[in-house]
């Protein structure tokens, strides 16, 4: 068994209203930090998993992302910095 780690970013799907992002937009505009802000909020996870090889570890990771870390009705996910530990 090999060990892999990855970063997962979960964000709202395009077209799903993001009230928290909109609230941050307002703050950026109000404070003058950025006049034309578009903020989208999301969640970040970093995790390590085991697998026979890269393919099986990645397929396991996809199941974890779809079943546990995100909900496809509302969110999408991106796997980043996948690497063997």
């Amino acid at each position, binding site marked *: 068994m090999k060990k892999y780690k990855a970063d997962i970013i979960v964000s709202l799907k395009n077209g*799903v*209203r993001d*009230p*928290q992002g*909109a*609230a941050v937009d307002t703050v950026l505009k109000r404070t003058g930090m950025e006049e034309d802000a578009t903020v989208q909020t999301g*969640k970040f996870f970093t995790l390590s998993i085991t697998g026979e090889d890269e393919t099986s570890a990645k397929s396991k990771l996809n199941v974890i992302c779809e079943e*546990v*870390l995100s*909900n496809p*009705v*509302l969110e999408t996910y991106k796997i980043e910095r996948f690497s063997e530990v």
Partner: protein
Amino acid sequence: MKSGIKAGIIVFPGTNCDIDTRRACEFYGWQTEFIWHDEKNLDKYDVIFLPGGFSYGDYIRAGRLAKFSPAVMALKDYVKAKRGFVIGICNGFQVLCETKLLPGILSTNTNTKFICEEVELSVNHEGFPGTVKFAIAHGEGRYIADEAVLEEIVAKNMLFLRYNDNPNGSALDIAGLYDKENKIIGMMPHPERGIFAETGNTDGRYFFEMLERELNKNLCACKYTACSQAEEY
């Protein structure tokens, strides 16, 4: 007054409306038990409640982690077998959507606030007045589903409760869904908080009385089945 109805209330770590729900059930004389979330068999109950609260701290998302608990796994078998009714209130509705026992999902309120107030609701079910007032208390109550799912909800007549003055941005003003085929009701408002006169609201009784009528129909059907089986012998 004792009733033959057996109610079970699933309690997760972080559930906080379990006692209110139990008191409401006991008000009607139902035999009521708490079910710890690692229970694997729910067959003895005529109705299962998923009460309000913050199951598993609502970590990742409201209702997300509860869907992996043994009791919710068992709930899927309970529904498949059409054993009885499943009622998800507030966090319970979120769990039902996460589990896909009801369609769609509940997301952050449009105004990003935790809304705790009494709201007027239109009810699409016999035995209710056209409008009732129930309490709501949620931060993630905005019902979302894609167009095809919303059309199906309307076509299947699942629109059970709708906000008169939509507080959270829900699609089609949806506050609660009723899947009559599978006997599943999910709703953000809290009927169990409208039972006792001292709370200033007794509209929740309409809901529990409706449920009692439905459950008694179910009990009669079960007895009838038992009788007809006995006659065959």
